[in-house]
Structure formats: C-alpha cells, structure tokens
C-alpha cells in the first residue's frame, strides 16, 4: 500500500496520530505537499461522507475522521506557499446563526469543506448578520454556509440574506443553509442558493456552487 493509501485509511479510521506520522513520513520521502489533497485527504473524506450518508458512520466517527484529516492539513498548510501554493476551491464564510449555539453540525461541514480544498472562515456560533457581511468583504468569500438547529432561530438565516442584499454582496456570494429544522422549501423561501441535508450533501453542493 502506498503512503497515500495508508493515509487515506488512517483518516477514514480516525487515527490522528497515525495520519500525522504518515504525512511526515511521506514529506520526508519527497511526496509533494500539493498532492496530499487530491490523492489522500479528499478521497478519504469522500469515503467518510459516503459512510455517513449510509448511516454507517455517526457524528463521533465523522468528527474523529475529520480531526485526523485536520492534523494532516495543519502540517501541509505552512508548506503550501509560493510555488507550491494551491489555490483554494473557494472561500467559505460559515457560522451558526444568531441566537443559536449548536456547532457540531457546522463544525463537521466546515471540516469536510476544508478537507475538500476550501478555505474556511469559521465565525463560530451566535453570529450576527453584520459579522457575516463583514467577513465576506474582508476575505473576499464566494460562499456563505450557515446553520441553525432551532425552529426559533432559523428565521435569522433570512436576516443574513437580507443583510447581504443590503450590503450589495448577494450577487457575489452563494448562500448555503443547513441544520435539523431546515428544509429545501425553507431554503428556497428565504432565497438561499442551496440546502444541504447533511454534511456530504453540503460539500457536494458547495463544490457545484463554487465551480
């Protein structure tokens, strides 16, 4: 098995220390930092997404795998500069909307998007529309991904879209929404560009919208 294959397996199994060792070993053996994404991290997280969709993996397994992937991206990031720099697939501003503190789903989506090659600006939880607008401007983002877990807070997604409109940014960014009470119809009714019913769906949609 190649190092990339072994690394894929370590990420899928959520073995962060093994993944870290393999990444360092691969770099020492001369593997190019830029090859890790297409050859190990992206396929590994795609497999994690598949297992999640098929109910084989649940939140803990997905989080553990995503953390293993993150240990690898943390090693690679400082190396991906200058000539080795990899252009991110897109820049995503993400957060849980105002009034809501649930961040597990948002974190999973953020980590999976990161593993899929996006640059993530994670604003955390209880995020006001103003903060999102500001971050979109500051980081020149092309995607906004927001989450709400309460029926009483998901109305704030609409407030974010209104704020993006008011700031003249709505045409510049695609808006992606998700969270337990959110539905496709709701997403349409507030004028979002897409609804991710789970993290893998959100990643697929983000790829599509960023293309």
């Amino acid at each position, binding site marked *: 098995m190649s190092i990339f294959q072994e690394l894929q397996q370590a990420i899928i199994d959520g073995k962060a220390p093994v993944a870290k060792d393999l990444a360092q070993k691969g770099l020492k053996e001369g593997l190019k930092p830029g090859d890790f994404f297409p050859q190990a991290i992206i396929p590994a997280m795609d497999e994690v997404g598949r297992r999640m969709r098929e109910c084989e993996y*649940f939140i803990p*397994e997905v989080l553990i795998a995503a953390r293993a992937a993150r240990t690898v991206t943390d090693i690679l990031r400082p190396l991906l500069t200058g000539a080795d720099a990899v252009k991110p697939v897109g820049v995503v501003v993400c957060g849980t909307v105002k009034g809501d503190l649930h961040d597990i789903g948002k974190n999973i989506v953020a980590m999976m998007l990161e593993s899929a090659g996006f640059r993530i600006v994670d604003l955390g939880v209880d995020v006001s529309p103003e903060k999102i607008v500001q971050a979109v401007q500051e980081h020149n983002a092309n995607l906004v991904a927001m989450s709400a877990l309460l029926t*009483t807070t998901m109305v704030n997604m609409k407030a974010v879209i209104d704020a993006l409109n008011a700031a003249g940014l709505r045409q510049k960014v695609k808006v992606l929404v998700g969270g337990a009470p959110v539905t496709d119809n709701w997403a349409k009714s507030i004028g979002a560009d897409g609804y991710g019913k789970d993290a893998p769906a959100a990643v697929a949609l983000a790829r599509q919208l960023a293309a």
Partner: protein
Amino acid sequence: MTSRVRIQLQPLGATFEVERGAPLQDPLFVHGVEFPCGGKGRCKGCRVRVLEGTLPVTPEDAKMLRSEELAAGWRLACQSRAQADLTLELAQWEVPILADESAFEFVPREGLGIAVDLGTTTLVAQLVDRATGHVLSVRSALNAQARYGADVMSRVEFAVAGNGQRRLEQLVRKQIGRMIAGLIAAAQADASRIREVVLVGNSVMHHLFCGIALEPLSHYPFVPAEAGLRAFRASELGWSIPGDPTVRFLPCLGGFVGSDILAGTLAAKLGESEELVALVDLGTNGEIVIGNRRRLLCASTAAGPAFEGARISMGMRASTGAITEVSTELGRVSCRVFGNVSPRGLCGSGLVDAVAAGLDLGLIHPTGRFNHGRQEWLLAPHVALTQNDIRELQLAKAAIAAGIRILLERWGASKADVTRLYLAGAFGNYINRSSALRIGLLDFPIEKVQPAGNTALLGAKIALFSLDGQEGSYAALAGRIQHVPLGADSHFQDVFVDEMGFPAPQPVPIGGNQS
C-alpha cells in the same frame, strides 16, 4: 329529533356536541385521542367503550374486536358516527399518567387545596384535604396545547408567531379550569372550602400559563423574562370558584428549568441530604439537579423527543399497543406490550430496552451501527428497530449523560460520589434501570437509581401546606439552586459527542453460557 348529539368523554370529563351522524374522529382528536393507524380501522388503538347510549357495530369493529369486547361496548372510534347522545370511555386513558399517592409530612391546615403538575405533554391535578393530607380526587389529561407542538421549543415557536401565545394561554387555563371542576365534582366537595391552588411546570409552561412573553426563551441566552412566583385570583384566570382562592405558579429556576424541578427537589429532599444526590427528569428536555445540603446545581439539556417515541420509525407514546419492555433470554427476544393487544410500536422504555438487548446480542456495535450490514431489527411482527432509531436514541442519551457529567464536573464530584439518583416523571418510572445503564444513559449502579414517581406533583402538594403569606420552603430553596446554562459551556459539545457511543460489552463471565 335535534340535529346535534352530545358526547361525554370519560375519564376526561369533557363534553362536546357534534352533528348527528358525524364521524367521531375529528372531535376526539381535538380531545387528545390518537389514531395510531391514521383512522383506517386497522388497529384498535383508538377504541372507546360505550358507557351510556349506543353505537352501532361497524364491519371494521366486527373484524378487529372480539365478540366479548363488542358485547362490553368497545368500538373503534375512527369508524364511529354518533346517532345519539353518548358517554364514552377512552381506552387510551389506560395510559397511566403518573399521579402521586406518596405520604408526606405536613402541618394540618383548614380547607382544601389543589395541586397541579402542568407538564408539556400531560397534566395531573389532585384535590387535597389540608386537614388530613388525603387526596380526594385526581384528574389527568394530555396537555391541550400539544396539538400546536409536542415539545417546548415547538410550543415556543407557535407562541412567538402571531397571536399564538394568547391562544396557548387560553387553552391551558380553560383546560385546568375544567379539570378543577372535575376534581370538585368527583369528590363531591364543597368548592367554597378551596383555599389554594398551586401549579408547577417548566419555564415555558410557567410563561404560557402566567401570560409572560416567551420571546426571550426562543433564542440564546434563553433567560426567562420573569421567573418568579406568580399569584392570581381564580377569577382572573376565568375560573369561577366560590371564595375566589389564590392560584400560585411556583418560580422557575433558570433557563428552561422550572418549578416542576424545584418541587421535585423539595419532594426528594435533595436540599436536606448530607450525601451527594441527584434528581433526573427524562423528557424532551432532560432536567438534572445535583447537590446536597450545602450546594445544589441544576441544568436542562435538549434530549429531543426520542424518549417519547417521536422521530422513531415505529415510535409511539406509552399507550395501548406500545412495546414497553424488550428482554432477551438465551438469545431469544421477548416483548411486553401495553394493553392486551398486538404490538403496534415502540415507546421510550421499549426503545432503550431494545438497544440494550441489541448491544448484548452483538447485533449493535458500540458505535451505534448495526453489525453485519443489517438495516433493521424486527422485534415483533410489524415492529422494527431501524438504524436511524438507534441514532436518535444516541442523541437523546448523549444529551442527558453529558448534562450529568458537566454538572458533576462543575460541582467538583465524580459519578462514584453520587449516593442516590432519583428518577422523576413517567418515563423515569418505566425505564429499565439495567438497560439505562447498559446504553450509558444513566451510568450508575442500578441500586443507586430510584424511580421517585411524580415528584413535581408531590412538591406542589407540599406547597399547599407551606405557602400562604410566608415564603415557606420554596423561595429559600429556589435561591439555593444555581442554574448552569449548558449550551453556553463550550465543553458541553465535546462531552455530548463523547457520550454518543455505547459502552463496550462487559466481558462474559468464565463459564457463562451465551449459546
């Protein structure tokens, strides 16, 4: 012949009129009767017994009910059309809504009192003789607000939208008023002797009953607008009781934790304990109190509706036809069903048992997934446990277990320091403690876990003897219980995820026969 007929429901005591010949399904639904098969005459869940009047036997009745049942007056409500005035007994009210018959210490007082446990799902009220402490009558019902949402958050959502709050307030005030009239009638009591009515409930029920804006409870930081004790005259609530007694709703503790937990804490005497003890109410909102004589902490944790059978593929409340227990012996599964009917679904206690059994039998992996690519497990004919059901239970149990863990951390104690854990509420009364331990919901030795019944109602009754004018035990106790907002604890999410898995199987004792 008039064109309308009058229907009376027992044991609810409710009366309504319908057009002669109109189907009974809709009006019965309004009164909380559930139609498990959707009113298609395919189950017996909605059956009613005719106590007065007559209901013709339909072909569906003849098919589904035995001749003895038909002779005893049982009919399927979903197929029935009333041709004359009727008094009906509802089979679903075999559902034991927990009342309270436990003895308690009191200083005798004059007159009568009424204690009400206003739950999100169920309501229980008792008329009490304050001279003897005896319960003279009991009334229970499903909360009439439930058709606008099963759990507190959906109730909040309905309340903050448009004029919802006023509607919910009026519904519950009217319903409790009817229950009080029922209590008086059942005991043939002299209503002018009623001196006091005490209500307890979570913060959302408190706000809805008292008419306090719910908006602050719809978002972080979930701080109730007004959490204090509220007092009314009965007449202000639209209740006509001679003497116009005082009606008090006991104070909330913070966040969603209300006076039902305050009352439970008093009833289970947590504040008098030398040792570290805990009170846990397992519901859509799990509530937890831990502490002792010196210090008490409380919290609520959103467990979701799995324990009540909602969002479970074949889930149902603990009513007729529900699998309430699942056990295994030598690898064989057996189910206990509520009521004398064939199994129709799985209620919370059955779900916990089923997953515990699945773990023991090696059908379910500690991560929660079915082993060997299985997608569901048929527990009984037509009742299966699915992969998604297990996931829902994992979320619910992780929320409770994480809440307990964080409160213990805040207290500076470990699980082993807890000498007793009281389980409040109906679900706590029926859950199998070994199964709760097996799935990691209550990771405490079963001898330490004690079902404590309806502690909220007991605490409300105690208040009937300790309130008027004086602060009684309540204000002092409420002041001693510190509310810990779990959502704002960044550590909570990590612990929550950490608690989602199930404990690994215990090693099989040497010589144990597992064939």
